């Protein structure tokens, strides 16, 4: 028996099965990301003054990545339009751009993650707190923490300190960066027994980085999943265009709806995580 309304819409709802399905799925996704957003709000308003990490993400790169995702949303909707008028070749080109944008977004995000894993905060026993990069044997190590110092039996570490700290407000941070511009980082040597805690910018560093990595990694998984689906429809799944074009267009529309949702989530994540 053939499944009804797989291609043509039901008369009473005006929807075919997959379209109803994707909207129900997106509704559940709204609740998933909404729950995490509300967690963010709880954590943000509960943070003691000066404890909330801010101003440490790379805004130009984040802005560029936002533009990449917006561009991909435009190419997705244009590719669907191209199919609606029967222009398969144009659809192919536009969705190829979408897939490249998705890969670009993930590549840039990986670069940002790497930058965070190389960046450290040192809590000294005298109460001083420093941010910066560790230099060890001519390289910048990742993922070190207090236990690493014990395991490696290091007497001291060499830190290339940042001019600013997130305990400053936004104006003070901008001023500190401006003042330090053009000056080379002078490395400081910190004795291990002066260190109370050492952490890279990983989820364990602070509440902020815990929620930052949770939200952005979950979003990146959605980007990856969306890109895989779009690439499948674009590549091996494109045979359907010859046998059942209407069904193929429906698939492109449904995958496009998911992709726009992923873009929509990022539109809110970007200001909340990078700018506030």
């Amino acid at each position, binding site marked *: 028996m053939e499944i009804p309304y797989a291609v043509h819409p039901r008369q009473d709802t*005006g929807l075919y099965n997959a379209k109803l399905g994707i909207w129900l799925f997106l*509704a559940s996704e709204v609740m998933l990301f909404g729950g995490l957003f509300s967690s963010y709000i709880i954590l943000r308003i509960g943070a003691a003054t000066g404890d909330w990490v801010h101003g440490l993400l790379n805004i130009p790169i984040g802005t560029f990545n936002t533009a990449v995702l917006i561009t991909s949303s435009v190419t997705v909707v244009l590719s669907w339009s191209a199919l609606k008028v029967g222009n398969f070749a144009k659809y192919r080109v536009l969705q190829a751009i979408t897939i490249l944008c998705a890969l670009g977004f993930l590549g840039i995000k990986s670069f940002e993650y790497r930058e965070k894993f190389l960046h450290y905060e040192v809590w000294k026993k005298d109460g001083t707190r420093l941010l910066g990069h560790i230099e060890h044997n001519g390289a910048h190590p990742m993922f070190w923490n207090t236990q690493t110092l014990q395991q490696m039996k290091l007497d001291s570490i060499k830190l290339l300190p940042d001019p600013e700290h997130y305990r400053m407000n936004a104006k003070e941070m901008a001023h500190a960066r401006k003042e330090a511009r053009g000056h080379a980082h002078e490395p400081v040597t910190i004795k291990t027994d002066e260190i109370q805690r050492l952490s890279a910018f990983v989820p364990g560093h602070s509440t902020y980085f815990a929620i930052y990595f949770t939200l952005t990694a979950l979003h990146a998984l959605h980007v990856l999943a969306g890109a895989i689906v779009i690439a499948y429809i674009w590549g091996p799944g494109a045979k359907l265009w010859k046998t059942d074009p209407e069904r193929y267009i429906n698939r492109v529309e449904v995958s496009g709806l998911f992709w726009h949702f992923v873009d929509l989530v990022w539109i809110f994540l970007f200001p909340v995580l990078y*700018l506030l």
Partner: protein
Amino acid sequence: MSHDAHEVSKHVRIYFIVGFALLIGTILTVAMNYLHFDSMALTVFIALLIATVKGFLVAGYFMHLMSEKKMIYGILGATAFFFAGMMYLTIHARDDMPHGSSHTGSIRTLEVPAKTASH
């Protein structure tokens, strides 16, 4: 499908305009960040206002919610209701924070644990 081929090709221009508006919105959000308003509340309000407008553009035009079927609006209405409920509970819980929830992670020290005092 709610759009026929002729209607779709008419909409292509709108998609470009919306895409451009989204890019402008992104630039505005970032520019606002460099202005450093004294009031944090104002900064949050403006940033979320721009994000909401951008969200409406994506949902309204790219996801075609401007001209969708009633059932989709019904699903989204129910989602909005439960989402608002969840946010209300979040705000309601503001004065009921678990003790010690405002911290910057667990603190590990290099110190050898102090010996237990002998009796």
